[in-house]
């Protein structure tokens, strides 16, 4: 308590400074230096189609432009300038300037790829270099087109725009892009810039019986963005990326009201200017949007301190064909029947478009510290995490990687600069493997991230390390921890490299009670390996997992699965079969259908089994009422 009180004036002061910075260009702000509600100007009315916000109001500073393809890849993950390649010397390299790893040489990468997958640099695939824009014609009748034009909201029928919004990031989606296979794509892309725009669009869609598929960050890994191939109506892709403003910040209640199209990184960056953060950091936060998080029940890395999306959200506004749904107050908890927000969270774009969200914010943490622990084996690692969860002393993030992932982490170690560091590394390795007797093929690593006040962090750090020691864990330094977290952002890029060398892969996740964590991890990995063998995969696959979240009653487990498909005629269907049987194995081992990726269309077939017939019926009846004409017809979930 005491520390919090001390912290408040400090934060307020910081805020004042930053507010001052921001206010400079804006004309309409009051002269009061510290209003309790720091508002950006010109928020209430929608500046639809204002020519680049010429009135000088701070125009939306979203990092994603309408033409996303200008900065993002059309055929893979992330920024165009950032990717893994092998240079002329055959050394791995990560290009660009955006990440800590950018521009670094990764000497161990090649050997790791050869060893883990039997891949070789000589066997390279030849994907398309430009997108296949030979798309089916845009379905859009004259009348509808005319009404659309009348709305005065920017839209596009450009093939590239349409193609780019026809997919998420499932393996088969990226694979198809690289091969140039195109099925159904949206007919129109539209960029509303505020809530009332969305209302108009949905009204228009209802009038003309048009199908709307909301598009946020496009990072879905559940086939949620795939257009149903048999959809005969016009499909409008409603891209929320231009609805990206923070409407107001309320520092009395520590909430911020934000448009749902904002990406995670923009939200955090802009909040940080006021001295705040949401603390919601899913691995996709660079690109994924607030509305997307709400629609899929997202989970962030630091949920131990800040909570998952359902804990963070205070108020939601959603536009449905029936009208706008929201609550009338911002009370922190209500007993007003089943929580209607829980129909919205996880609705995956089947009910409407989330337009505005009030989200909790916190002061930026005073102190952050990374850490890592080495365990002799996965079992003791899990036991330690369980104990940490039992004592409820989990730091902001605690993750346990298995041995394979630990070795993968090593493969991405950049070239060391000095002899001294390499000597130190050697010494560390010697200590752990020889002196402590850890088997390098068994040991695994936990990465930690502490946040809070300095004293609290140090206290918590000691507590966690003490618990770890009981399970045979050894502290392994801040650097390893930090690299571990950096890798989570970079790792998404590696699949694109793999696909250049006949390696296809995917990640999938689940949540499972504590007592089944070990069994589930072992069984699923074994199932993946077995299935690959049965299906004629000629090389041992990569089947690896990490425990990424701890809860009171269980944990979230994240799997990576990849294999070298040389010699297989139909790698995608083999992959899909194996992934499906792994999912079945997860369900049979007491795991959930999904922890945070969502159901989409990819996992639809197991939903009934997961939530019972009646459960499905309940969801159906909501859909029936809210959207009787199936305007939001992406056919996710049900």
């Amino acid at each position, binding site marked *: 308590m005491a520390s919090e009180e001390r912290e408040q004036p400090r934060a307020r002061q910081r805020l004042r400074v930053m507010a001052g910075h921001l206010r400079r260009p804006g004309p309409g702000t009051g002269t009061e230096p510290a209003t309790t509600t720091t508002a950006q100007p010109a928020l209430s009315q929608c500046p639809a189609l204002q020519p680049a916000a010429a009135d000088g109001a701070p125009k939306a500073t979203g990092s994603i432009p309408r033409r996303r393809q200008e900065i993002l890849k059309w055929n893979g993950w992330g920024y165009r300038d950032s990717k893994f390649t092998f240079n002329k010397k055959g050394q791995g390299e990560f290009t660009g300037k955006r990440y800590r790893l950018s521009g670094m040489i990764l000497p161990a990468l090649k050997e790791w790829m050869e060893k883990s997958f039997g891949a070789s640099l000589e066997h390279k695939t030849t994907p398309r270099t430009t997108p296949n824009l030979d798309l089916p014609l845009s379905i859009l009748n004259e009348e509808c087109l005319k009404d659309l034009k009348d709305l005065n909201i920017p839209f596009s029928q450009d093939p590239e725009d349409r193609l780019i919004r026809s997919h998420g990031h499932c393996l088969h989606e990226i694979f198809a892009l690289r091969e140039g296979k195109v099925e159904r794509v949206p007919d129109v892309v539209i960029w509303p810039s505020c809530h009332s725009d969305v209302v108009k669009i949905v009204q228009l869609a209802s009038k003309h019986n048009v199908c709307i598929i909301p598009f946020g960050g496009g990072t879905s890994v559940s086939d949620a963005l795939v257009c149903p191939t048999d959809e005969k109506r016009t499909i409008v892709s409603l891209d929320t990326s231009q609805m990206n403003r923070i409407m107001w910040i309320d520092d009395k209640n520590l909430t911020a009201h934000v448009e749902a199209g904002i990406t995670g990184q923009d939200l955090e960056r802009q909040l940080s200017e006021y001295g705040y953060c949401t603390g919601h950091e899913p691995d996709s936060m660079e690109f994924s949007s607030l509305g997307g998080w709400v629609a899929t029940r997202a989970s962030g890395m630091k949920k131990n301190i800040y909570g998952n999306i359902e804990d963070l959200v205070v108020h939601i506004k959603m536009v449905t064909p029936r009208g706008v749904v929201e609550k009338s107050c911002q009370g922190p908890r209500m007993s007003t029947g089943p929580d209607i927000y829980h129909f919205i969270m996880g609705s995956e774009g089947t009910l409407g478009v989330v337009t505005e969200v009030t989200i909790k914010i916190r002061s930026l943490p005073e102190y952050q510290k990374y850490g890592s622990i080495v365990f002799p084996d996965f079992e003791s690692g899990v036991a330690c995490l369980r104990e940490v969860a039992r004592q409820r002393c989990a730091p902001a993030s605690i993750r346990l990687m298995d041995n394979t992932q630990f070795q993968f982490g090593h493969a991405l170690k950049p070239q060391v600069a000095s002899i001294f560091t390499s000597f130190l590394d050697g010494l560390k390795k010697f200590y752990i493997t020889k002196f402590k007797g850890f088997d390098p093929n068994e040991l695994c690593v936990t990465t930690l991230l502490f946040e809070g006040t300095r004293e609290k962090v140090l206290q918590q750090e000691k507590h966690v390390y003490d618990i770890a020691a009981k399970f045979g864990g050894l502290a392994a330094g801040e650097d390893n921890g930090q690299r571990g977290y950096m890798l989570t952002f970079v790792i998404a890029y590696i699949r694109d490299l793999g696909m250049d060398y006949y390696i296809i892969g995917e990640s999938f996740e689940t949540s499972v009670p504590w007592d089944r964590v070990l*069994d589930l991890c072992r*069984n699923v990995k074994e199932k993946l390996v077995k299935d690959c063998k049965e299906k004629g995969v000629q090389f041992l696959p990569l089947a690896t997992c990490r425990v990424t979240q701890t809860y009171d009653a269980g944990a979230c487990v994240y799997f990576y699965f990849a294999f070298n498909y040389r010699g297989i005629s139909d790698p995608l269907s083999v992959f899909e079969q194996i992934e499906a049987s792994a999912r079945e194995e997860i369900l*049979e*081992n007491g795991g959930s259908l999904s922890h945070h990726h969502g159901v989409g269309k990819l996992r639809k077939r197991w939903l009934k089994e997961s939530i019972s017939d009646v459960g499905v019926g309940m969801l159906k009846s909501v859909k029936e009422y809210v959207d009787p004409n199936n305007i939001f017809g992406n056919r996710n979930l049900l």
Partner: protein
Amino acid sequence: MGHSLRLSIVRFFAFTLSKIFKMLFHKVHVNEEGIQKLQQAIQEYPVVVLPSHRSYIDFLMLSYIMYTYDLSLPVIAAGMDFMGMKIVGEMLRMSGAFFIRRSFGGDKLYWAVFSEYVKTILRNGDAPVEFFLEGTRSRTGKSLMPKLGLLNIAMEPFLMGEVFDMYLVPISISYERILEESLYAHELLGVPKPKESTSGLLKARKILSENFGSIHVYFGQPVSVRSLATGIVRRSHYNLLPRHIPRKPSEDVHRFLDAVGHKLVLLQQKNMVISPWVLMATVIIQNLPGLTLTELTRQTLWLRTIAEVFGASIDWPENVTPDKVIRSSLALRHNIVKTIKNQVVLCQEDTPAEFTVEMIFKRTVSVLMCASYRNQILHVFVRPALVAIAFQNTQSCKREDIFGCFSYLREVLSDEFVFLPGNLVKDFDEGLYLLMKSGAIHMSQADLHISEKGNTTISFLSVMFVPFLEGYQVIFKYPLHPEFADDFTEKSFIAAFRTYAAELILTGAIKYNEVLSTDMQKNALAALIRLGAVEKFKTAEGIICKVNKQTLGRVVDMLAPRIPVKNAAVARL
């Protein structure tokens, strides 16, 4: 409960056993490729070894063989009886056996501790777990219906996802001559089983001077539980209860266990090795009171070819004249049969005429001993034989008619012989296929006909099963008898029936003494309960049975003329 493995004790056992086995048995055959497969299986996943159970020797022999081949010694779940044996009980424990009570009654704690114990051994994968699917030694030489309690415990680590997979290894142990043969025959006639005791064991040492022929131990192909369960069991049923809480298997798991149990018993049967004496016993028992040596030889050789066509593996000595084989087999069985004036007869056959109840029991001992060897081959013949009987009963060439009769017979006899549940059509097809393969039946257009030479086969096969069909009939009719009390227990039924049947035999009304076997009586009673002719009630004094006379009447009718519905002509059985 609990085993405490001590290598010194194991070595001591191994030493003495090797001595004893050498004295008792001529040879022990082991399939080494099966042992290699077992070894591989042990390295991969937890293993449950499931030997057939014909003798006390079974588990000693198996441990001995696994010790000899350097495999990890199995931990054996054996009946409590052994624990009563002084010193020896302790020693068995130290060689890896642990003891369980025969019945748990309502003792939930015992069950929980016991199942946790077994599961821990399996989960840790230190040693294979061994138990007997049949639950007890088969007294009749036929396989018993699998008991599912232990199987459920053993499979739970897989069903609950604690292990990725496990292997079930069926092991078939075939004895040329079973140590307990006369004991079994007496037990079947109601003489209670003697208590296992160390002094008893010492007394039994006189059998050491006898020759018990050779033993075949066949290690079957390990069966992956995962492959059995895939698509059949939904393991997610186990998600909603903490895994340490004992629970009854759900209906579909129960069905699965039942199918697995049956399947493994069938696998045990498949790999049983059949000795020449079994063929001879089959011939002898069909030709009581006796037949000539030459006739015996002729028929045995004929049966051998048929059995081989039907897929039996017969351990017929090579490079020896058939005559010699027959004679040496007869010599080994001097306690069951003897040769008088070139006539092969049962031992008790020499005092004719004077029939008393006591005499009948004495004679039945010999019959049952002989039958117990014949029973060892019945699993080879049961499907084609039931088709053959159906053929004769229906006097029809229509496949559907024959199938109808077959399915009824199979239903009635499904406690007597092991059939895979839900496998009716395949069983019929297999039986028919084998008959066609042996040339007994041929198909012209859609009709089936008995070929000319097929008559011998058909009638031989049906006669082989007559003791069962006749026996069942007598047992089924008994409750219709006016003196029969309405309420009864299994015990009282068997005791009363025994006197009734003995008299019938005395008067010559029935010829087949096997009906005196309590095993058959129990199975027939179980069949009546299954067919709904007898109903079970739980009362304070235990389980009481009640006859449903109407249903029983129908059941008897169905079986009695052995002709379903229309064709009332009496069959020639």
